[in-house]
Protein backbone atom coordinates (compact mmCIF):
# COMPACT_ATOMS: atom_id res chain seq x y z
CA UNK A 1 0.00 0.00 0.00
CA UNK A 2 1.36 3.37 -0.90
CA UNK A 3 0.38 6.68 0.45
CA UNK A 4 1.76 9.53 -1.56
CA UNK A 5 1.31 12.83 0.09
CA UNK A 6 2.09 15.98 -1.79
CA UNK A 7 2.82 18.73 0.66
CA UNK A 8 1.57 22.10 -0.42
CA UNK A 9 1.25 25.50 1.15
CA UNK A 10 -2.25 26.39 2.34
CA UNK A 11 -2.88 28.90 -0.41
CA UNK A 12 -3.92 27.52 -3.74
CA UNK A 13 -1.24 27.74 -6.31
CA UNK A 14 -1.17 26.48 -9.80
CA UNK A 15 2.32 25.15 -10.25
CA UNK A 16 2.64 23.43 -13.56
CA UNK A 17 5.84 21.76 -14.63
CA UNK A 18 8.92 23.87 -14.22
CA UNK A 19 9.27 24.61 -17.92
CA UNK A 20 5.94 26.49 -18.00
CA UNK A 21 5.59 29.87 -16.42
CA UNK A 22 4.32 29.81 -12.88
CA UNK A 23 0.96 31.45 -12.37
CA UNK A 24 0.13 32.75 -8.94
CA UNK A 25 -3.35 33.61 -7.93
CA UNK A 26 -3.99 36.12 -5.26
CA UNK A 27 -6.88 35.14 -3.07
CA UNK A 28 -7.54 38.15 -0.97
CA UNK A 29 -9.90 40.08 -3.26
CA UNK A 30 -13.60 39.77 -3.95
CA UNK A 31 -14.68 37.88 -7.04
CA UNK A 32 -18.07 36.94 -8.28
CA UNK A 33 -18.77 33.27 -8.91
CA UNK A 34 -18.90 33.61 -12.67
CA UNK A 35 -15.55 35.43 -12.79
CA UNK A 36 -14.14 32.76 -10.48
CA UNK A 37 -15.36 30.04 -12.85
CA UNK A 38 -14.05 31.84 -15.93
CA UNK A 39 -10.71 32.43 -14.30
CA UNK A 40 -10.44 28.76 -13.26
CA UNK A 41 -11.36 27.68 -16.77
CA UNK A 42 -8.78 30.01 -18.28
CA UNK A 43 -6.16 28.78 -15.86
CA UNK A 44 -7.04 25.18 -16.64
CA UNK A 45 -6.80 25.81 -20.37
CA UNK A 46 -3.37 27.29 -19.84
CA UNK A 47 -2.42 24.42 -17.61
CA UNK A 48 -3.74 21.93 -20.18
CA UNK A 49 -1.44 23.37 -22.78
CA UNK A 50 1.57 22.89 -20.53
CA UNK A 51 3.56 19.78 -21.39
CA UNK A 52 3.09 16.52 -19.38
CA UNK A 53 1.34 18.10 -16.46
CA UNK A 54 -0.53 15.98 -13.95
CA UNK A 55 -2.44 18.89 -12.55
CA UNK A 56 -4.90 19.02 -15.42
CA UNK A 57 -8.06 16.94 -15.15
CA UNK A 58 -8.45 14.34 -17.88
CA UNK A 59 -11.47 14.54 -20.15
CA UNK A 60 -13.82 12.07 -18.37
CA UNK A 61 -13.34 13.92 -15.08
CA UNK A 62 -13.60 17.47 -16.33
CA UNK A 63 -17.23 17.70 -15.25
CA UNK A 64 -16.03 17.39 -11.66
CA UNK A 65 -13.68 20.32 -11.80
CA UNK A 66 -13.91 22.83 -8.99
CA UNK A 67 -14.31 20.52 -6.01
CA UNK A 68 -12.00 18.27 -4.07
CA UNK A 69 -12.25 15.02 -5.97
CA UNK A 70 -12.06 11.59 -4.35
CA UNK A 71 -11.51 9.03 -7.09
CA UNK A 72 -11.89 5.36 -6.27
CA UNK A 73 -10.74 2.85 -8.86
CA UNK A 74 -12.74 -0.39 -8.60
CA UNK A 75 -13.71 -3.52 -10.54
CA UNK A 76 -16.44 -6.15 -10.27
CA UNK A 77 -13.77 -8.81 -9.75
CA UNK A 78 -12.17 -7.04 -6.80
CA UNK A 79 -13.34 -8.40 -3.44
CA UNK A 80 -12.17 -5.50 -1.24
CA UNK A 81 -14.10 -3.16 -3.54
CA UNK A 82 -17.30 -4.82 -2.38
CA UNK A 83 -16.33 -3.95 1.17
CA UNK A 84 -15.30 -0.40 0.32
CA UNK A 85 -18.60 0.67 -1.25
CA UNK A 86 -20.59 0.88 1.99
CA UNK A 87 -17.78 2.95 3.49
CA UNK A 88 -17.72 5.22 0.42
CA UNK A 89 -21.46 5.70 0.79
CA UNK A 90 -20.84 6.80 4.37
CA UNK A 91 -18.20 9.28 3.26
CA UNK A 92 -20.56 10.58 0.59
CA UNK A 93 -23.18 11.20 3.26
CA UNK A 94 -20.70 12.87 5.57
CA UNK A 95 -18.72 15.05 3.21
CA UNK A 96 -20.84 15.15 0.07
CA UNK A 97 -21.33 18.89 0.22
CA UNK A 98 -17.63 19.58 -0.03
CA UNK A 99 -16.23 16.43 -1.57
CA UNK A 100 -17.06 14.80 -4.87
CA UNK A 101 -16.66 11.02 -4.88
CA UNK A 102 -16.28 9.41 -8.27
CA UNK A 103 -15.86 5.67 -8.65
CA UNK A 104 -13.92 4.79 -11.79
CA UNK A 105 -14.65 1.29 -13.01
CA UNK A 106 -11.90 -0.59 -14.85
CA UNK A 107 -13.82 -3.71 -15.95
CA UNK A 108 -13.21 -4.45 -19.61
CA UNK A 109 -16.84 -5.54 -19.75
CA UNK A 110 -19.10 -2.86 -18.31
CA UNK A 111 -21.99 -5.30 -17.96
CA UNK A 112 -20.11 -7.01 -15.11
CA UNK A 113 -19.72 -3.62 -13.46
CA UNK A 114 -23.45 -2.96 -13.67
CA UNK A 115 -24.19 -6.36 -12.13
CA UNK A 116 -21.85 -5.48 -9.24
CA UNK A 117 -23.61 -2.13 -8.78
CA UNK A 118 -26.97 -3.85 -8.52
CA UNK A 119 -25.60 -5.85 -5.57
CA UNK A 120 -23.63 -2.96 -4.03
CA UNK A 121 -25.46 0.27 -4.71
CA UNK A 122 -23.43 3.44 -4.98
CA UNK A 123 -24.62 6.84 -3.80
CA UNK A 124 -21.86 8.45 -5.82
CA UNK A 125 -21.11 8.84 -9.51
CA UNK A 126 -19.58 6.05 -11.53
CA UNK A 127 -17.34 6.64 -14.52
CA UNK A 128 -16.38 3.81 -16.86
CA UNK A 129 -12.77 3.38 -17.93
CA UNK A 130 -12.70 0.01 -19.73
CA UNK A 131 -9.50 0.75 -21.61
CA UNK A 132 -7.70 1.70 -18.41
CA UNK A 133 -6.63 5.16 -19.60
CA UNK A 134 -7.49 6.87 -16.33
CA UNK A 135 -5.89 4.09 -14.32
CA UNK A 136 -2.73 4.42 -16.40
CA UNK A 137 -2.71 8.19 -16.04
CA UNK A 138 -2.73 8.07 -12.28
CA UNK A 139 -0.26 5.16 -12.19
CA UNK A 140 -2.56 2.93 -10.19
CA UNK A 141 -0.47 0.55 -8.15
CA UNK A 142 -3.02 -1.94 -6.87
CA UNK A 143 -6.71 -2.65 -6.64
CA UNK A 144 -8.68 -0.91 -5.32
CA UNK A 145 -6.92 2.47 -5.50
CA UNK A 146 -7.81 5.89 -4.22
CA UNK A 147 -6.65 9.20 -5.62
CA UNK A 148 -7.58 12.52 -4.04
CA UNK A 149 -7.27 15.53 -6.29
CA UNK A 150 -7.45 19.21 -5.51
CA UNK A 151 -10.02 21.33 -7.33
CA UNK A 152 -7.51 22.15 -10.03
CA UNK A 153 -6.51 18.53 -10.54
CA UNK A 154 -3.39 18.40 -8.42
CA UNK A 155 -2.66 15.07 -6.82
CA UNK A 156 -3.04 15.38 -3.06
CA UNK A 157 -3.11 11.81 -1.87
CA UNK A 158 -2.96 8.30 -3.25
CA UNK A 159 -3.16 4.86 -1.71
CA UNK A 160 -4.01 1.34 -2.81
CA UNK A 161 -5.90 -1.40 -1.05
CA UNK A 162 -8.90 -1.26 1.26
CA UNK A 163 -8.63 -2.52 4.81
CA UNK A 164 -11.31 -2.14 7.48
CA UNK A 165 -8.63 -1.32 10.01
CA UNK A 166 -7.40 1.60 7.94
CA UNK A 167 -10.69 3.42 7.32
CA UNK A 168 -9.63 5.88 10.01
CA UNK A 169 -6.56 6.77 7.98
CA UNK A 170 -8.60 7.07 4.80
CA UNK A 171 -11.04 9.43 6.46
CA UNK A 172 -8.17 11.48 7.89
CA UNK A 173 -6.81 11.91 4.36
CA UNK A 174 -10.22 13.23 3.26
CA UNK A 175 -10.40 15.65 6.17
CA UNK A 176 -6.89 16.84 5.49
CA UNK A 177 -7.66 17.49 1.86
CA UNK A 178 -10.89 19.32 2.71
CA UNK A 179 -9.29 21.40 5.41
CA UNK A 180 -6.30 22.58 3.48
CA UNK A 181 -7.36 22.59 -0.11
CA UNK A 182 -11.03 23.50 -0.34
CA UNK A 183 -11.29 25.99 -3.20
CA UNK A 184 -12.14 29.56 -2.35
CA UNK A 185 -15.80 30.10 -3.19
CA UNK A 186 -15.71 33.87 -3.34
CA UNK A 187 -16.73 34.96 0.17
CA UNK A 188 -14.20 36.71 2.29
CA UNK A 189 -13.83 34.62 5.45
Amino acid sequence: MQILFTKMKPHIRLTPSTSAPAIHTVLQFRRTRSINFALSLALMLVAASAPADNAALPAPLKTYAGKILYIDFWASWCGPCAQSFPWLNQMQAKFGDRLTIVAVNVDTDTASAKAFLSRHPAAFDVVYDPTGKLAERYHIDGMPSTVILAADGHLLHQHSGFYDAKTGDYEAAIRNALQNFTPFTGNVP
Partner: protein
Amino acid sequence: MKLGLIPILFLTAALSACSSVAVKPWQRGILARADMQLDAHPIQSQFDDHIYFSKEAASGGRGFGGGGCGCN
Protein backbone atom coordinates in the same frame (compact mmCIF):
# COMPACT_ATOMS: atom_id res chain seq x y z
CA MET B 1 19.69 -34.85 -8.05
CA LYS B 2 20.95 -31.79 -9.80
CA LEU B 3 18.57 -28.95 -9.11
CA GLY B 4 16.95 -27.34 -12.10
CA LEU B 5 15.73 -24.60 -9.83
CA ILE B 6 18.37 -21.98 -10.60
CA PRO B 7 17.76 -21.94 -14.34
CA ILE B 8 14.04 -21.86 -13.64
CA LEU B 9 14.45 -18.80 -11.42
CA PHE B 10 16.50 -17.06 -14.09
CA LEU B 11 13.89 -17.88 -16.70
CA THR B 12 11.12 -16.48 -14.54
CA ALA B 13 13.15 -13.38 -13.71
CA ALA B 14 13.73 -12.89 -17.42
CA LEU B 15 10.05 -13.39 -18.13
CA SER B 16 9.04 -10.92 -15.48
CA ALA B 17 11.43 -8.38 -16.93
CA CYS B 18 9.57 -8.47 -20.23
CA SER B 19 6.92 -5.80 -19.96
CA SER B 20 4.71 -7.79 -22.30
CA VAL B 21 4.08 -10.47 -19.69
CA ALA B 22 3.46 -8.24 -16.71
CA VAL B 23 -0.05 -6.92 -16.26
CA LYS B 24 -1.17 -3.74 -14.64
CA PRO B 25 -3.23 -4.02 -11.46
CA TRP B 26 -6.41 -3.00 -13.29
CA GLN B 27 -5.93 -5.65 -15.98
CA ARG B 28 -6.41 -8.65 -13.68
CA GLY B 29 -10.08 -9.32 -14.33
CA ILE B 30 -9.46 -12.66 -16.03
CA LEU B 31 -6.78 -13.72 -13.55
CA ALA B 32 -9.29 -13.02 -10.77
CA ARG B 33 -11.74 -15.62 -12.10
CA ALA B 34 -12.29 -18.63 -9.86
CA ASP B 35 -11.48 -21.02 -12.71
CA MET B 36 -8.15 -19.26 -13.39
CA GLN B 37 -6.73 -19.96 -9.95
CA LEU B 38 -3.87 -22.43 -9.78
CA ASP B 39 -5.96 -24.71 -7.66
CA ALA B 40 -9.47 -24.09 -8.94
CA HIS B 41 -10.97 -27.22 -7.32
CA PRO B 42 -9.35 -27.63 -3.91
CA ILE B 43 -11.58 -30.47 -2.71
CA GLN B 44 -10.97 -32.48 -5.84
CA SER B 45 -7.24 -31.86 -5.63
CA GLN B 46 -7.36 -33.15 -2.10
CA PHE B 47 -9.12 -36.34 -3.25
CA ASP B 48 -6.64 -36.77 -6.07
CA ASP B 49 -3.66 -36.30 -3.76
CA HIS B 50 -5.02 -38.96 -1.48
CA ILE B 51 -5.82 -41.48 -4.22
CA TYR B 52 -2.51 -41.11 -6.00
CA PHE B 53 -0.53 -41.14 -2.76
CA SER B 54 -2.13 -44.50 -1.95
CA LYS B 55 -1.58 -46.08 -5.34
CA GLU B 56 1.63 -44.56 -6.67
CA ALA B 57 5.15 -44.00 -5.41
CA ALA B 58 5.43 -40.34 -6.44
CA SER B 59 4.01 -37.45 -4.50
CA GLY B 60 4.42 -33.75 -4.02
CA GLY B 61 5.07 -30.91 -6.42
CA ARG B 62 1.92 -28.82 -6.32
CA GLY B 63 2.39 -25.40 -4.82
CA PHE B 64 0.43 -22.35 -3.80
CA GLY B 65 0.36 -18.63 -4.19
CA GLY B 66 0.32 -16.25 -7.12
CA GLY B 67 -2.13 -15.23 -9.80
CA GLY B 68 -5.54 -14.05 -8.70
CA CYS B 69 -6.90 -10.54 -8.57
CA GLY B 70 -3.92 -9.15 -6.72
CA CYS B 71 -6.21 -7.05 -4.55
CA ASN B 72 -4.98 -5.50 -1.32
